[in-house]
């Protein structure tokens, strides 16, 4: 849809309040979902909880193909379908819920820059490790990705996805990197985040923003997902303030149901 049509639709949707039956779709949690998708989905869930917007999480085997942009997760609100964190933040803003209203222009610029840092470094590293590292791809990614399908479709889809991701890595210049360099990049990214966070509870002091949700989504998923090697989690653990940051957000926003 053109930008004008987008704006028109978002104006119409802005008039409606957030419904009770908003749903978030992601691939099957137990057998299918991969690290990068799980991280993105958790980031969106954290963001919506921080805004205080209720959402149900539904797992579907074909969630990736249902999504209008082909990326996980996407939310179905009323009769609108929105995918990925950036557009979802804009969508909730149009409905009057926003976490970054209190920031001034320079802070907002910093927030967006750091979000792009996470996307550029962490998410790309996750994709690289999942699909370009042969050991992980063979043992974890391909079997999980093709889990709901029967042979020979499972093989075709898994290899097709691997080929697509490798093409993308080559286009952005990550094709020539080896695993060590990728881990180094992740370390540098985590150090940068750690420096920025310092001893504050959230990145912009008192209030969480979408940057906190995004960082939490990725770090928490990496820390709690078992891969062929624990190297990635180790690199994050060397920054203790990030660990306590994750724990804090988990306790504040995700454990209210268990009590």
């Amino acid at each position, binding site marked *: 849809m053109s*930008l004008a049509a987008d704006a028109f639709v978002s104006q119409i949707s802005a008039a409606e309040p957030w419904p009770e039956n908003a749903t978030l779709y992601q691939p099957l949690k137990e057998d299918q979902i991969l690290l990068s998708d799980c991280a993105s989905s958790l980031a969106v869930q954290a963001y919506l909880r921080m805004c205080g917007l209720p959402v149900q999480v539904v797992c579907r085997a074909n969630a990736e193909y249902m999504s*209008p942009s082909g990326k996980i997760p996407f939310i179905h609100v009323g009769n609108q379908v929105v995918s990925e964190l950036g557009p979802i933040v804009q969508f909730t803003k149009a409905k009057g819920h926003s976490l970054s209203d209190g920031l001034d222009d320079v802070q907002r610029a910093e927030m967006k820059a750091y979000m*792009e840092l996470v996307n550029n470094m962490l998410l790309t590293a996750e994709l690289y490790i999942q699909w370009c590292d042969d050991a992980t791809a063979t043992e974890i990614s391909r079997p999980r990705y093709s889990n709901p399908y029967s042979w020979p479709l499972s093989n075709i889809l898994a290899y097709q996805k691997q080929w697509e991701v490798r*093409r993308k890595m080559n286009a952005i210049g990550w094709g020539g990197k080896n695993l060590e360099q990728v881990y180094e990049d992740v370390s540098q990214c985590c150090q940068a985040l750690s420096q*920025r966070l310092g001893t504050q509870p959230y990145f912009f002091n008192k209030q969480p923003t979408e940057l906190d949700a995004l960082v939490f989504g990725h770090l928490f998923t990496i820390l709690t997902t078992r891969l062929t090697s624990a190297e990635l989690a180790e690199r994050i653990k060397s920054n203790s303030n990030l660990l306590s940051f994750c724990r804090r957000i988990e306790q504040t926003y995700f454990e209210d149901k268990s009590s």
Partner: protein
Amino acid sequence: MAAAMELRCWGGDWGLPSVHTDSLIVLAYATFSGAKLTASPIDWTWKTLTATVPELVCGDSAVTEPSQILNFLRKQRFNADYELTARQGADTMAYIALLEEKLLPALLHTFWVDAENYANLTRPWFASRSPFPLNFLVPSCLAKIALSRILLTKGESPLHRITEVEGKIYSDAKECLNLLSYRLGTENYFFGNSPTSLDAFVFGFVAPLHKASLPSSPLQSHLRQLDNLTCFCDNILAVYFSSSHPCPPPPVQETMDANLQKLTQLVNKESNLIEKMDDNLRSSPQHKPHRPDPKPSLASEKSSTPA
């Protein structure tokens, strides 16, 4: 350090030392940090098709990619970032990521995919700088690479058509330019009074857009409205790339440099240690926290004034 360094890059035009973004980044950084590079343009050679540009050749080793070249130069003690705090270093990484994700696709589109610009400006320029018969191949090869990069990173499957993403990448790019403008404010450079690697990156991305005579570009007209960014580019060109004025001496580099770096690192490590101790103290059961608020960061206080 004494080995001569040669940079293979695309040639210059429109008042810029190079029209190619990545080459421009490396040239700008080299000038900021005082590294003596001989720029050997690959124009009119067969390297236009075969070489990865930019490429830094120093003795036996060859390095490609702007970020790796900058790392290499830093290791050779040509460091324009030594005055930055760790926090500012983190900001640099973040802003560079912002440039690559939000601004680069629109720049690639403006120069290589937009039909009017490509036919009237980009293709003639690159064709005129390539030897026969490569002048037929080189521009279309580069255009194909640019298009596939845009589609692979921004294209939304399954409708991989360029028209679907055009609106989005341009609005992202305009927002990115606005954010850079807010961050720059009224300063000359992004951090303090001397340019750093972030300035090199921003210059490399923004200057071609500012200086090229594009027949049709809404992005360029948007940039022209952001005065501080255009002044930023003009300022760097005047101070560092003008043939009439000699370059200002780079900030004092000598052996003091290494010591300063070591000190800064030590200070940072200390502050991390202190943080850790602090955390441990707070979480230990005997010492209940008196104040619920997080204390101001010791690290930021200390590292702002390198001893």
